[in-house]
């Protein structure tokens, strides 16, 4: 039973960064663009949290962790649109640029390219909530303030996508930008705002990761941006699906962590499990989708015969 409780307690901190980033990915999917830069934006959030937080405190750090990736994402889209560049390539360059830039700034500010630890930035655990309950107790108990904050940002992003006029416009932009033009709304602006939201959510994800350990480490995101992208696709680019897929991944990660403690399986194998499962699920999903598509009618250029007069 304590095994189970430990899995549950690890589920929450594992879920938050993936969920936030996945919602960030969903925001641009709504407007019809794949934001490949989730990984880089998470790192930008994590580094901003530590760099700004170590100077002005964790609150300022958290704000910076939201603002910096949001700005990067917005500029990334602006550049792609104004220079008519491929959004995918610009996103890839963000993924390459951010770790390099973080390393450079880290050298300048802290004199190291490696780990920057600041214990004051490690977010405090909140007192145990719902101590009596069997599942919710361990799930929500003793979690970090930073995780709750990041979760609220994620919830905000989800609410914006699901329930606001912006969410409606974003979906319209993704389906047929002309529908927005006839509504007197500039599709480019909506796309820019979607990227902004995407950066914001990824920033929250990065802040949660950095605040959990109170440090910046190179490769802080460790593939969560990619997992988040897969979660968006597995969730069929819908809100509910993305939530479920993120939850599934978080559960796998938590199980892998718990299994590591058992020593009965090689740790590397267990650590690779989520990624192996990702690969399997993606392939299976592709096959299922293909099977569902109706068969293409055979070419019918010739007439089948016409009735006589």
């Amino acid at each position, binding site marked *: 039973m304590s095994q189970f409780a430990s899995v549950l307690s690890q589920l929450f901190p594992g879920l938050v960064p993936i969920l936030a980033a996945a919602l960030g990915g969903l925001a641009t999917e709504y407007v019809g663009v794949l934001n490949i830069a989730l990984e880089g934006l998470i790192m930008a959030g994590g580094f901003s949290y530590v760099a700004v937080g170590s100077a002005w405190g964790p609150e300022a750090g958290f704000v910076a962790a939201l603002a910096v990736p949001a700005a990067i994402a917005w500029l990334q889209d602006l550049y792609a649109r104004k220079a008519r560049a491929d959004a995918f390539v610009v996103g890839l360059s963000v993924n390459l640029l951010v770790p390099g830039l973080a390393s450079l700034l880290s050298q300048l500010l802290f004199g190291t390219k490696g780990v920057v630890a600041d214990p004051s930035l490690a977010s405090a655990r909140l007192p145990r909530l719902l101590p009596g309950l069997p599942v919710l107790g361990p799930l929500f108990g003793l979690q970090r303030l930073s995780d709750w904050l990041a979760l609220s940002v994620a919830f905000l992003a989800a609410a914006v996508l699901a*329930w*606001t*006029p912006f*969410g*409606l*416009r974003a*979906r*319209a932009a993704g*389906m*047929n930008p*002309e*529908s*927005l*033009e*006839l*509504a*007197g*709304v*500039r599709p480019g602006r909506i796309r820019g705002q979607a990227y902004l939201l995407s950066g914001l959510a990824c920033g929250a994800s990065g802040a949660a990761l950095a605040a959990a350990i109170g440090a910046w480490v190179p490769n802080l995101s460790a593939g969560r941006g990619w997992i988040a992208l897969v979660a968006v696709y597995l969730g069929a680019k819908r809100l509910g699906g993305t939530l479920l897929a993120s939850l599934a991944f978080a559960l796998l990660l938590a199980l892998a962590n718990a299994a590591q403690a058992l020593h009965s399986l090689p740790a590397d194998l267990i650590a690779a499990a989520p990624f192996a499962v990702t690969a399997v699920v993606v392939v299976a999903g592709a096959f299922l989708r293909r099977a569902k598509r109706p068969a293409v*009618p*055979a*070419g*019918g*250029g*010739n*007439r*089948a*015969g*016409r*009735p*006589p*007069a």
Partner: protein
Amino acid sequence: MQLLACSGIHKRFPSTGTQALAGADFFLEKGEVHALVGENGAGKSTLARVVCGLLEPDAGTLSVDGRPVRFRSHRDAERSGIGLVPQHSMLAPGLTVAENLALGHEPRRGLAFFDGRRAVYEAAMLADRFGFSVPPDARVSDLGPSGRREAEILRAVARGSRVLVLDEPTSILSEEESSRLFALIRRLKDAGTGIVYISHRAREILELADRVTVLRDGRTLATVGARQLDECSLAELIIPTGACASEGGSRGSAAEPVLEFRGAMTAGGAGLDLTVRSGEIVGVAALEGNSLDELEDLAAGVTVPGARQLFLRGRELHGDGRDAAARREVAYLPTDREGRGLSARSPARDNLLASRLRGYSPRAYAGRKRPREDAAGLAAAFGIRGDLSRPADALSGGNRQRLVAARELDGRPGLVIAANPAQGLDPAARASVFRRLLELREQGSAVLLLSQDPLDLAELADRSFILYRGRLSPIPPEGLQEGRLSSLLTGAFA
């Protein structure tokens, strides 16, 4: 006071380098239906987009009620009461009708939330006011063409349109849906709405319009009262051919269009516009290498036309299995008789009866008596000699030609595509094929005659065109006289 005035509108598209509008003028009064006509590429849709604020003109002025206006987006135009029903759908397919209507003017609830229920309610009220049946909570992608068009119209009138711009609104509608649309247009007109009506269909324009403005090469050519026009003079305004005077009554132009090319692309270049109506023979002549075969392939469904480029009885042809039912009424006499027209190893009789298999019950066909008699009758009528129970291969070349012609010209096809019909036929067979084509025309078939021999056209066609370097140009009847044929085919007329 003019409701809407556009003067000296210029618009160039830098990316393609085309000067779409070069000084277009257009004036719309309250409560009038004003048709905007012109060839493809004359600038109609561009002018519509400028009027609706979707494009900013390079030069020229717009004014509404005498006040100069400048539209930076459609929202500005909307504020002046201008709504657009675009040629191609501008709806978001995955959203519902109500959501599409609400877009840009979303009703809100609470802090900043979209009030979906209110949007459905508003859309339902609006649909009710116009007597539309489109369900507000249906996804646009689940609607048929008329439902989409209704949604499109509702969106245009949702903000209280004073000016309604309709860009080829009937192109995807059936006859009945169109007449419902016309009723609506008349109602809006009576209520004082000014209507800009863009269409290629002369009949609709004459039925609806009070005035007609003709665009050519981005300029306004003329604005005339619709009552002074008939179908022929209207067509003459759009593309001057001299056909009205010389062609007695322009046979069949009042008849229903059967096959329509609308800006269909061939490798030759420009988009082709051509309409074949029931009860007429439209001829197209060309020398080899002028993509006559491409035109044939498009018409016959061998190649896939572009979206909304080819229509059979107003219904779009896609060049695939979706056309199967519509193509049942199409007879096709291919240039490549042997390759396309014959199943060489099947018995000649089966080849001959292939187009009327539907007329037999399986038993009747298996019983052989009736098909045997029918085939013999057809063979006699077209002078086919040879053993019909042997493979088609076994017939002589001339008989194989006649077999294909006999099969395709049998029955009552709605549309006949006759490609080089005289090819490989002796004078007697040629005469019987031609006689049959004229007979079919009298019976109301539409005939598209494609030929490398202008003499075929001279004998058969009611209207003739020359295809030269990917462009269709009308040929006046005297152009088909023998002495002028060579200059004709080398493009002197084009």
